């Protein structure tokens, strides 16, 4: 008995003791080295930590190549290190991943003028503190750095409603995901839709945006309908759940009342 008791206590100690020393996520040699430096060599890491790339696990080597596991060879061209592109090459640099955006951008006024200093990716999205593609990126302050806001404002106005729909669907999917509903497939569809829609913006062609918006909104309504169907099922569950809870409370109260009669009887 004592041996069993001691074993249980030892085991209890092990299972009860949760510590705060979670394994730290291993950082790449790029981050380790640049973090220890100062000035412009350290800034990219600080900026990157705030970026959408960092949030999605895209690290230095995802864009710049090289070997993130080897200090000596991290920046070797033999390991695919590219380094920083020149101004006009940035669209091709980013376009290796953002293929659709690259195509639309290349056909736009921005893309056509890139050799002459036209806006490229990092002008709007930043180089290392890469901002998420959101409608707020189109604003008078930023666009007016290069040209008048008028046309950009028109494009923004054409996109606002669809963007709000996308935001609303995203919030609903997050809510359902938190309830254990499998949203992967719908999220994948929304991801594709959002990327196609944002690619469309990069054409900087207000008529094109307007003409294709209906199609996107139709797709979004289909997704919204799917979410509504799931919500209906969840609402039904709550009705059944409410009935079960009410029944149990009723059963409990009735049992208590019956108990009172027994108690009286036992008192005699």
């Amino acid at each position, binding site marked *: 008995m004592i041996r069993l*008791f001691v074993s249980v*206590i030892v085991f209890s100690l092990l299972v009860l003791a*949760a*510590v*705060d020393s979670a394994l730290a996520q291993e950082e790449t040699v790029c981050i380790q080295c640049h973090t220890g430096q100062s000035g412009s060599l350290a800034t990219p890491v600080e900026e990157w930590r705030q970026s959408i790339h960092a949030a999605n696990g895209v690290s230095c080597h995802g864009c710049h190549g090289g070997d993130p596991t080897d200090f000596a060879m991290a920046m070797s061209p033999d390991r695919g290190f590219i380094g920083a592109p020149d101004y006009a090459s940035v669209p091709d640099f980013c376009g290796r991943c953002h293929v659709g955006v690259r195509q639309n951008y290349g056909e736009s006024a921005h893309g056509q003028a890139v050799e002459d200093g036209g806006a490229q990716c990092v002008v709007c999205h930043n180089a290392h503190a890469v901002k998420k593609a959101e409608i707020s990126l189109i604003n008078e302050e930023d666009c007016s750095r290069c040209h008048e806001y008028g046309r950009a404002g028109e494009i923004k106005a054409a996109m606002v409603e669809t963007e709000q729909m996308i935001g609303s669907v995203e919030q609903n999917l997050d809510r359902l995901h938190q309830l254990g509903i*499998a949203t992967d497939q719908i999220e994948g569809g929304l991801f594709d839709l959002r990327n196609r829609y944002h690619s469309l913006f990069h054409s900087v062609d207000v008529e094109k945006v307007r003409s294709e918006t209906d199609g996107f909104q139709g797709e979004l309504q289909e997704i919204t309908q799917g979410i509504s169907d799931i919500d209906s099922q969840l609402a039904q569950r709550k009705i059944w759940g409410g009935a079960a809870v009410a029944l*149990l409370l009723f059963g409990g109260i009735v*049992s208590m009342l*019956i108990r009172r009669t027994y108690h009286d009887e*036992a008192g005699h």
Partner: protein
Amino acid sequence: MNWKKQVIDFIETRLGIRDILEQNLTKYLLPRNINAWYTLGAVLLTLFMIQFATGILLLIYYVPNPAEAFQSVERIMNEVPFGWLMRTLHAVGANIIIIALLLHMLSVMFMASYKRPRELTWLSGFIILNLAFALCLTGYLLPWSQLSFWATTVATDAAGAIPLIGDDLVRFLRGGSMVNEATLGRFFALHVMGMPLMLGLLIGFHLFCVRRAGISRAPFGPDYQPREHPDHFEHEEHHDGIPFFPNYVIKDTAVICFFLAFFLAIVFFAPNLFFPESAFEPADPFVTPPGIKPEWYFLWAYQALKIFPSEIIGLGVQGAFMTFLALLPFIDRGAERRPFKRPLFLTCYALGILLFVGISIWGHYS
């Protein structure tokens, strides 16, 4: 109809079932001042049965393999008819059981029902509580989510603080240097077979102890007087008591109904109360989710380890505390059971609860 009577008579003549039922139901008398806290045992039995039933149903579809575990749980939640209900009942039920176990333990402590001759009842109950914690921990890993993976990593990592054998112990618990397929395999085996078997035996022993020693009289009311227990075995009789059936069973039923109503209210209206976001992401050994915390009932231990300058001191203090609780009936041996006649005990009891709650809240927000 006649053949039914013949069958019953056949069994009755050979086994005397009516007598057993009479002795354990209608002629089994309980103290007249028995209160609602005594029903927690029946509540716990019901909850354990629900866990057992839902666990078996989950077992039909669950796949204990890192490559498929998360998807199988997702399938249970989304495709299997009423799978979401079985899984939510099982996961929320684990938390409700811990709540009921803690309440049961605290009520027994308050009424000092652990005292002689019920030391073994207390000890088996204390082991059941710890086994329930272990079942929660092993079950936590099975969905193979980010939460599962990292909470298990953190919890098993604690064993590394033990001098000399710490590292080997961590490897033994995990089946390797990291939480991996081997960890899932051994946690699965323990969760669905080893521990339920031990739990069943312990619950049986606990009930046997309760039945043999008799239900302790609540230490309240003007008629209550503390008494020394004799050196020989004595079943505590209550000749003027109330019958277990139907008088007390109906009270058990009422409290079980209220407890289940509370349980189902969470299942249907706040199902994600015990599930943080990381519970719905598949395990990724290369990405540590931010702010990973143990379940609420381990928060006190988690925070206690952070308070002390070294983990080994923290572990030692927790070990001493748990040992003290386990051995309480052998330390607190006086005959007096009335809480208000035991000011030192009452102060420690109240401070202990406040400390548990306070440290847990601190751990949650730290």
